[in-house]
C-alpha cells in the first residue's frame, strides 16, 4: 500500500510552485538532456510525405490549434539545482524549414525553444522530437493529430480515432504521468550486466551532416521471407544488421577485434503501454537486447534469425523487462542520488552512460509496425517514415515503418562508413526481397 502511494506520488509529473506550474522529466528522459549535444541530438523523427505540396498557412494554423491539447509538450527545458525540469512556454509553435540533414543542429538546453520542431518542405511534414519529451508512442499521437487537423483545415474531414486527439477535450492527467515510476516494483532484481558490444570504427561525417539511407521494401515479400525463417519482421531486420556487423568484424585485423567488444547487441524498443495500462504521452518504452557472440565463428543468416528470435522470446516482457524499471527508477529514488546537485549528477550520468549504457549496444531496431491514419487521410499520405536518434558510437540504427504495402526502413548514421547499411540491405536483397534505396547524400550504396 505504502509502495503504491509512493509510486503515485512519484508518477505525478506536474508540479506547481510560486513561479507557476512545471513538469518533472520522466525517469527515462532524465539522462537525455545530459547526454545530448548539437550533433547527437537525441531527436527522433516522424515524417509524412503527402500526395500534394504542403500548404504552410494551414499547417501553422493546425499546429497552433492542437497545441493547447498537448500542454505537456509546450514547454522548454530548464536547469534546476537538483534536476532538469520542463516549464510551460508561452509561445505558439510554428513550422520551420526542413533541410537536407534531419535531426541535426538542435540544442535542447536553449531557453525559449520547444524541445520539438515541426519541419516542412515540399510535400513533406516532419516532427522531430527530443527524447526528453516523449518516445515514439507519444509523438505518434501528436503527429497524427497534427496531420488530421492539417487536413481538416484543408477541407478534408476524417473519422475520429483513438490515437487522434480532439483539441477541445481537456488533457487527461494520466497523459503526463511518469509511468515508469507508477509501475515501479522495488522487489524486482536489477538486470544482469551485459558483455561489451562490437562497434565498427569509422571516422564521423562533418558536423551537422547526417546520412539517411532509406530502403523501401514490399511488405508482402518481407513477411513471406520472415515467415519462412519462422521469425518476425523486427527479428529479420535485427538479423540482417547482426549479419552486417559479423561481416565487418571478420574484415578487421585481430588487434582491432580484440579492442572492441565481442557481442553484436541490438536495442529493440518495446512499447510498455502494451503491457501496463498507461495513457502516458511521456516516455514509456524499454528494450529487448538480442545479442549474439561474434567470437563463436560464422553464423549463417538463418541461424542468426533463429537466435534473435529465441533471445527475444525467452525474455518475457512482463517479467524480464520491468527489471529495467527496477534499476532505473530504483536508482533515481535513492536519497543520496536526489541530493546531489545537478552538475555532479551530470558528471556521474555521463560516466555511467559511457561505461554502461552505450557500451552494451551495437545498434538498434525500432519497428513501429503498420501505421494507419483515419480514413480518408490514408490516401492523402504517400509515405510515412521514422528515424532513430543519431549516435556517434553505434551504427546500424534502423527505424522502420510499414505504410500501406511498403516498409520504409531508415538507417540514420553519423559515420562515414556505409558498410552496415550496405551489407544489411544486400543481405535482405539476397533473400529475394526487392530493395529500392534512397539516400539524402550523393553516392548512394
Amino acid at each position, binding site marked *: 500500500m505504502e509502495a503504491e502511494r509512493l509510486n503515485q506520488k512519484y508518477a505525478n509529473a506536474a508540479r506547481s510552485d510560486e513561479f507557476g506550474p512545471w513538469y518533472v522529466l520522466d525517469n527515462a528522459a532524465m539522462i537525455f538532456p545530459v547526454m545530448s549535444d548539437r550533433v547527437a541530438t537525441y531527436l527522433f523523427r516522424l515524417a509524412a510525405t503527402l500526395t500534394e505540396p504542403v500548404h504552410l498557412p494551414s499547417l501553422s494554423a493546425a499546429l497552433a490549434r492542437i497545441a493547447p491539447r498537448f500542454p505537456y509538450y509546450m514547454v522548454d527545458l530548464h536547469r534546476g539545482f537538483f534536476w532538469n525540469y520542463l516549464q510551460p512556454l508561452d509561445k505558439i509553435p510554428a513550422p520551420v524549414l526542413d533541410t537536407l540533414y534531419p535531426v541535426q543542429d538542435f540544442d535542447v538546453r536553449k531557453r525559449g525553444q520547444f524541445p520539438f520542431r515541426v519541419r516542412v518542405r515540399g510535400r513533406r511534414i516532419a516532427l522531430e522530437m527530443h527524447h526528453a519529451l516523449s518516445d515514439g508512442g507519444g509523438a505518434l499521437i501528436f503527429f497524427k493529430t497534427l496531420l488530421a487537423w492539417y487536413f481538416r483545415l484543408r477541407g478534408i474531414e476524417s473519422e475520429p480515432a483513438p490515437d487522434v486527439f480532439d483539441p477541445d477535450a481537456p488533457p487527461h492527467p494520466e497523459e503526463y504521468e511518469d509511468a515508469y515510476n507508477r509501475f515501479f516494483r522495488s522487489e524486482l532484481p536489477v538486470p544482469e550486466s551485459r558483455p561489451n558490444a562490437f562497434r565498427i570504427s569509422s571516422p564521423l561525417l562533418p558536423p551537422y551532416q547526417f546520412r539517411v539511407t532509406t530502403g523501401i521494401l514490399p511488405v508482402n515479400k518481407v513477411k513471406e521471407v520472415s515467415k519462412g525463417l519462422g521469425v518476425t519482421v523486427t527479428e529479420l531486420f535485427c538479423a540482417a544488421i547482426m549479419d552486417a556487423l559479423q561481416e565487418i568484424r571478420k574484415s578487421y585485423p585481430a588487434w582491432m577485434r580484440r579492442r572492441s567488444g565481442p557481442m553484436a547487441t541490438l536495442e529493440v524498443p518495446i512499447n510498455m503501454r502494451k503491457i501496463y495500462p498507461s495513457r502516458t504521452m511521456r516516455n514509456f518504452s524499454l528494450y529487448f537486447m538480442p545479442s549474439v557472440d561474434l567470437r563463436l565463428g560464422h553464423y549463417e543468416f538463418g541461424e542468426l534469425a533463429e537466435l534473435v528470435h*529465441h533471445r527475444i*522470446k525467452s525474455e518475457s516482457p512482463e517479467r524480464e523487462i520491468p527489471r529495467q524499471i527496477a534499476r532505473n527508477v530504483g536508482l533515481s529514488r535513492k536519497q543520496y542520488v536526489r541530493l546531489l546537485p545537478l552538475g555532479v549528477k551530470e558528471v556521474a550520468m555521463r560516466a555511467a552512460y559511457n561505461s554502461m549504457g552505450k557500451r552494451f549496444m551495437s545498434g538498434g531496431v525500432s519497428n513501429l509496425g503498420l501505421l494507419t491514419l483515419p480514413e480518408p487521410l490514408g490516401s492523402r499520405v504517400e509515405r510515412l517514415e521514422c528515424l532513430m536518434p543519431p549516435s556517434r558510437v553505434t551504427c546500424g540504427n534502423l527505424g522502420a515503418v510499414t505504410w500501406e504495402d511498403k516498409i520504409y526502413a531508415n538507417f540514420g548514421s553519423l559515420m562515414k562508413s556505409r558498410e552496415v547499411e550496405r551489407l544489411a540491405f544486400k543481405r535482405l536483397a539476397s533473400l529475394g526481397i526487392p530493395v529500392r534505396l534512397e539516400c539524402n547524400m550523393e553516392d548512394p550504396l
Partner: protein
Amino acid sequence: MSTNVANIRMARTLFQSTGGRYYMLDNAAIIMPAISDLVATSLFRIALVLDEPVRLPILQHALSNIAPRFPYFLVELRRGFFWYYFQPSRRPPVVIADLGSPCQGLDPRKARSHLFRVRARGRRVACEFSHILADGYGGLIFAKTLLAEYYRLLGVPSEPAPDVFTLDSEPNPHEWEDAYHRFFRENWPHPAPLPRAFRPPGPALPLGQYRVLTGILDLEAARREARARDASVTELLTAALMYAYQGIWESLPAPARRRKECMAAVEIPVNMRRFYPSRTLRNFTLFILPSVDLRLGPYTFEELVRIVHHRVALQNEEREIARQISRNAGGGRKLLVRLVPLVLKNFFARLLYDSLGEGLITGLLTNLGAMTLPAPLDRKVERFEFVPAPSRSLKTNAAVCSWNGELHITFGSRAQSREVERRFFAVLSSINLRARIECDADPPSEC
C-alpha cells in the same frame, strides 16, 4: 595445425610405463574422484527387466565373455602424485546380487575394485557405472553387449547392431580416447559466469539409502502435449521440474526467499557425439542449463515451457557448448595446473566444482531418448531403467528414457522429502499426463 597435433596427443589416454599399461582419466572424469565418496558415489545405473528370471550362471558366463572386449573398463582407480589414473585390474568381473539401494555402497576413491558392477535379481539385470569410467552412452553399449551375449549363450542370437559390440572384434583405440581434448578449440571463449541456483532445503536420507521413484507415462500422449506447446518432451519435462522447484520456493518463508540463490536451473546433459564424430566410450557429455529467475515469478507452467524452449534452443548449439570444452580442457592443459600435486588439485577441484558446476544447478534431468535393441532381443526386454548418479548437493535428479511406447521418468533422490517428485508429477497430471508411479519403498499406486 599445431592445435590438431596437440589435440591428438592430449586425447591419448593409454600409456605404457615400467609398471605396465595405465590409462589417464578423461577431462570430465579428472574432477570426479575428488568429489565422490560413499554418498555421492558417481554411480549411474542402467537396468534391464527381462521377461523371465535371469539365469545367473549364464549371466556370469556372458560377463566373462564380453570383458576382454572392454579392456578400458576393467581397471581400478589409483592415485598418482599429479593425477589419478586407471590401472588394468587382474580381478575378473563378477555378477553380484541387486540388494539394497541402487548406486550405493561403493566409494570410488577407496575401492580396490572395478568402477562398474553388474547386479542381478529376479528378472532384472543392472549395470552400475561410475562416471569416472564412462557416461551413459558407454554404459549403454556395455549393457546391450552383455544382454546380447547372455541371450546368445541361451541360444537366442541377435542381429548385429552398431551399439552392440561383437566379441571377436578388436577394441578400437578411439573407444578410450579423451574426446574433450581431441575436439578442443584454442582461443575459444569460456562460458559466461552464471548466478547460483536455488536448492530445495530439507534433510537427507541416512547413509546408504537412495530412493528411486519412477513415473511411467504414455509416450504418445507426452509427445502430443509437448508438440501442442511447440516444445520437445525434454523441454516439457524440464519445465515441469522448474515448476516443481518454483512451488517449493514459493512455499518458503520470505527471509529464505531473499537469499541470493534464486535461479531454478535444470542441467540437461548433451551427448557430444551428436556434434563431433567420436567413438569414445569414456565421458563425452556436456551440459546445457536452462534457468529462470524465481524472483520474477510466479510463472505459469505454460510460460515455463515457452521460456525453456527458447533458452534450450539458444544453448543447444555446438559453438555454445564448445565453450565448456574450452574452459575445462584448457584448464587441464595449463602447465601450472599440471604441476600441482594431486592433494592440492583435489582441494581446488572441490571449490571449482561448486562454483562452476553444482552450485549453478538446482537439479539434473537427463533424457536418453528412445531405447533400441536388435531383434529379437527387443521382445525379451520389458523395460529399461535409468537411475541418475547420487550427488551430495543436488539431492533429487531425474533420468528419462522411453521404451515400448512408454516414457519412464526415474527420480533418484537422497532427500527425505518427496516434494520435488510429488509436485513434478502433479503438474504433469494437470495437463492430463497421469503417471503410474512406482517406488521401491511403496506398492504401485496411481498419482
